[in-house]
C-alpha cells in the first residue's frame, strides 16, 4: 500500500494539476488572514470552510491523475481495484491533511492573537475533518464512479455549492457552527466519522462500479 501511495503521489506531483487548487488555497488563505481574523477558533472557520472545496478538487485531481489505460496497468500490478482505489483514497486524505496542517499553522503564524496548544489541536482536528469531507465528496464522483470528467466536475461543484446553504444540516455545517462560536465539541468528531464514511463509501462504490 505504501509503495502504491508513493507512486500515486509522485504521479500527482509530476502532473502538476494539483497546482491550481493549491494556488487558490494559498491565495484565499492570504486574503483571510491579511487582517486580524478574530478569536482563535472563530478564525479557523474561514479556512475550514475553504479546505472543503479545495480537498474535493484535490480528490478529483488524485483520482484522475492516471489516465484510464495506465490505471488499468496499475490495477493489474497492484493486484486489484480495491487496493488501487484504497491507495487513491489514502493519497487524497494525506494531501488533505497536509493542506489542513498548513491552514492550521497559517492562523497561528498570521494572527496577532496567541494560540494555546489545545486551540491549535482543535483547529487541526476541525481542518482535518473538513479535508476528509471534501475528499469524500470528490472521490464519490470521480473515476471510476463517474467516467467522464465533465460529470465529475459538475457533480462535485453542485454538492460543494449546495453544502453551504444547508448550514447545520450537513457535517460541514456542524464544524463551521462550533468554530464560529469559538468552541469545540463532539460534533466535530461526528463530522469526522461522516467524512470517513464518505471516503470509505467512495472506495466501495468505485470497486463495485468497475
Amino acid at each position: 500500500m505504501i509503495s502504491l501511495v508513493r507512486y500515486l503521489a509522485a504521479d500527482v506531483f509530476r502532473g502538476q494539476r494539483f497546482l491550481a487548487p493549491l494556488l487558490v488555497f494559498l491565495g484565499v488563505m492570504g486574503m483571510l488572514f491579511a487582517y486580524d481574523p478574530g478569536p482563535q477558533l472563530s478564525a479557523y472557520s474561514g479556512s475550514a470552510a475553504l479546505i472543503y472545496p479545495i480537498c474535493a478538487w484535490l480528490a478529483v485531481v488524485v483520482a484522475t491523475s492516471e489516465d484510464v489505460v495506465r490505471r488499468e496497468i496499475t490495477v493489474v500490478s497492484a493486484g486489484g481495484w480495491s487496493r488501487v482505489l484504497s491507495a487513491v483514497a489514502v493519497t487524497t486524505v494525506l494531501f488533505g491533511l497536509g493542506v489542513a496542517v498548513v491552514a492550521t499553522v497559517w492562523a497561528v503564524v498570521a494572527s496577532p492573537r496567541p494560540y494555546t496548544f489545545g486551540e491549535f489541536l482543535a483547529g487541526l482536528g476541525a481542518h482535518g475533518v473538513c479535508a476528509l469531507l471534501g475528499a469524500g465528496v470528490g472521490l464519490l464522483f470521480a473515476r471510476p464512479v463517474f467516467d467522464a470528467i465533465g460529470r465529475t466536475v459538475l457533480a462535485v461543484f453542485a454538492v460543494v455549492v449546495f453544502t453551504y446553504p444547508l448550514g447545520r444540516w450537513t457535517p460541514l455545517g456542524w464544524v463551521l457552527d462550533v468554530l464560529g462560536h469559538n468552541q469545540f465539541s463532539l460534533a466535530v468528531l461526528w463530522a469526522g466519522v461522516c467524512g470517513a464514511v464518505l471516503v470509505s463509501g467512495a472506495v466501495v462504490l468505485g470497486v463495485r462500479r468497475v
Partner: protein
Amino acid sequence: MGTACGYLDGVLLDQVSKRYGRGPWVLRDLTLEVSGLVVLTGANGTGKSTLLKIAAGVLKPSSGRVVRPASVGYVPERFPSDVKMSASSYLAHMGRVRRAAAKDVLERLGFVGSLTAPMAELSKGNAQKVALAQAFLATDLLVLDEPWTGLDPEAAAELCVMLEGRTALVSDHEGHLASATRVDLAGGHVTIELSRVVGLDALEALEGVQSVLSRGSSARVVVAPDRSDQVLAEALRLGCSVRSVR
C-alpha cells in the same frame, strides 16, 4: 460471477460472459485454460481485448468464474503517450508496487532514448518497450494485447524469444508466435450490425459474407472472420453506420 487467485501459474476462465451495460454480449460462455503460451486470434470486435482485460483482472465478467495467479503482468493495446513520469521512475515505482527487482527487458528489447525524460517524449516503440518492461516484472502470468505494436523487427524477434517458456495470453494478428497454442475467438463468424444501410447488394456480393438480414434501414451481416476487416471497410466506404462488431 467470481474471481480468485492462486491457480498455479496460469489462468482459468470458466463459462465467462461479458456485456457492457445493456449492450450486446461481447463474450458468451467462454471457457479457456491458459498454461504455457497461448495466442488469441480473431477479427476486430470479437472480444480479444475484453477477454484479455478479464484475464488480467481489469474487468469483471458479467457471469462466469476467473481464477488467476497472484502476479500478473499486463500490456494494454495502446500504452498512453502523455505520461509525465520518466521511464526509470515509472519502472522503479512499479517494481516497488510488485516487490520485484528490475530486469534487463529494456536492454534486451534495444531501448534507445532517455530513461529520465518524461515518457511522453519517447517514441511509440520505446514507450511500448517500457510497457513490456513493467509487465515482465510479473512472475506468474503475462497478458499482452498486441505487444508487437510499434516494435522494430529486432525487438519483435527478441520479444518472441523472451516469451518462450513463459505462461502468457497474447493477442496477435501477425503470427509472431507460430509454435504457440492458438485460440480463435471469432468462433467461425463475425456479426456486423449496420444502420443507415446503403448498397446492400454490394455487401452481399463480397467474399466471406455468409448472410445478410435486412430490417428497415438496419442490417445484420454475418461474415467469415478472415474477411471481416474488408467487409467492414467496404460498408464504411458505402456510407453505412456501424453499430457493433462482435
